[in-house]
């Protein structure tokens, strides 16, 4: 009964909203707001059809590549900057500046340097989502508990073992916070990088549809993008909750006491 209730609450409003959209748009003759039925048709035929491999997949691969590079570089630099106070003092204003640059504005510059192919798009994604990862990692590493750190020292846990058993796990909640922020930036940049110049990709296809006034297809593409954003964040949450199970447990235990 409780489960049913929960499911009811979870799907209730979405179903109502969807139904409302369906009904109110059913007889729509407004060019820009076509009936939802046509949008769904297009979604199924186009986006889950040929475009899945032609456009969605290339976008996702570039997203994965850029995000992965940003994670590796961001965590590595973040650990270094978080560990050495002098380095942190030296770089903090510089990093503050780079973080404050709205990532899309570097697209025109990176386009000059890397052309308009995949490399540019991957670099754009990596560049943009690296900062939250880097800064959060540095903060997490800086804030490693002093008693825990002393404990590791007295047991002579140093070098790689220290990194693996102390620094990275201790900073992992912040690292994940950075990765989460980075992921949403990455999705934005995935789309943006395809708007300027591209021959395939989700963003490219949506804008293409808009320019050729294929309105249902455009709406379907927007839905697809939304669905993708939702699924990626869901996936991220699942990974995070498994990886950080200890952390959530610890927080609950602390809150209960």
């Amino acid at each position, binding site marked *: 009964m409780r489960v049913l209730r929960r499911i009811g609450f979870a799907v209730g409003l979405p179903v109502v909203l969807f139904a409302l959209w369906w009904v109110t748009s059913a007889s729509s003759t407004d060019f820009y707001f076509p009936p939802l039925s046509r949008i769904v048709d297009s979604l199924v035929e186009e986006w889950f059809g040929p475009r899945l491999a032609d456009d969605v997949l290339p976008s996702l691969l570039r997203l994965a590549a850029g995000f992965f590079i940003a994670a590796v570089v961001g965590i590595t630099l973040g650990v270094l900057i978080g560990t050495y106070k002098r380095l942190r003092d030296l770089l903090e204003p510089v990093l503050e500046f780079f973080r404050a640059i709205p990532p899309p504005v570097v697209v025109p510059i990176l386009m000059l340097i890397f052309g308009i192919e995949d490399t540019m798009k991957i670099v754009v994604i990596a560049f943009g989502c690296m900062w939250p990862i880097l800064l959060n990692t540095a903060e997490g590493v800086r804030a490693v508990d*002093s*008693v825990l750190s*002393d404990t590791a020292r*007295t047991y*002579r*846990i140093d070098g790689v073992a220290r990194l693996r058993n102390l620094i990275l796990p201790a900073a992992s909640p912040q690292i994940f916070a950075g990765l989460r922020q980075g992921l949403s930036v990455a999705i934005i940049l995935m789309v943006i990088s395809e708007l300027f110049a591209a021959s395939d990709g989700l963003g490219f296809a949506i804008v293409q549809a808009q320019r050729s006034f294929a309105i249902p297809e455009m709406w379907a593409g927007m839905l697809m993008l939304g669905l993708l954003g939702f699924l990626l964040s869901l996936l991220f949450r699942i990974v995070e909750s498994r990886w950080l199970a*200890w*952390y959530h447990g*610890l927080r609950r*235990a602390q809150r209960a006491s």
Partner: protein
Amino acid sequence: MLEVTGLKKVYEGKSRTVEAVRDLTFTLDTGELVCLVGPSGCGKTTLLKCMSGLLEPTSGSVRLQGKEVDGPPPGMAIVFQEYGRSLFPWMSVRENVELPLKQKKVPSARRKQLVDESIAAVGLADSHSAYPWQLSGGMQQRVAIARAIAYEPQVLLMDEPFAAVDAQTRADLEDLIRSLWKQFQVTTLFVTHDIDEAVYLGQRVLILSKSPTVIRQDLAIDLPDERDQLHTRSSARFAELRAQVYSQIHRPREEQDAPVAAVAPAVAGQP
């Protein structure tokens, strides 16, 4: 086996310098259980950190088996007061105990034996796979003690390990320390601010003054070797020793060099 000679630690701040430890000299013999007792804020933690090589003393030296300590030495384990912060929260009880042994390159069969033995010795044989934060405070401190014992240290330092647990748990843990000490015969320095605890546990009690810290007295505890919470604590000798420690700690600074004063009347009220 552990010698502290002329140890002095001065913290240099921006605007003021604080002399946390003035001049400490004492030794620990192999297999001894010595308690170090002093008022709150008398630099006990500073002393311990200097001894363990976590802090560099301003002057003086610490020698472990004749070798100068200039960083955390092998063969030394510490149990911190903040059990909640000294256990790795992302590791199970077992992993916590095992990690230092892995680092020490103990072969895996021996490692397993040591881990099993020490976890059993502290009475946590059922909690191998639990995370530390799933345990009560007293149990967490047991895990930290198990980790220290499994490490087979030459010296075990304990920094007010029971200051943050409730009274009943505390009594249990005190008895645990006595029995572990007998079982494993580790040289132990137990730091506390609790006079009763110091007298109950130690073979010797080192009494520290207020900061800047010096040693007031090195007192041998001639209580019988078999101790228990009920009889030992209610014995006349225990009361005398406790009174002596108390009066030393609360002796005003001017009398520092005068002979030990008579037992203070207020002693009975001291916990």
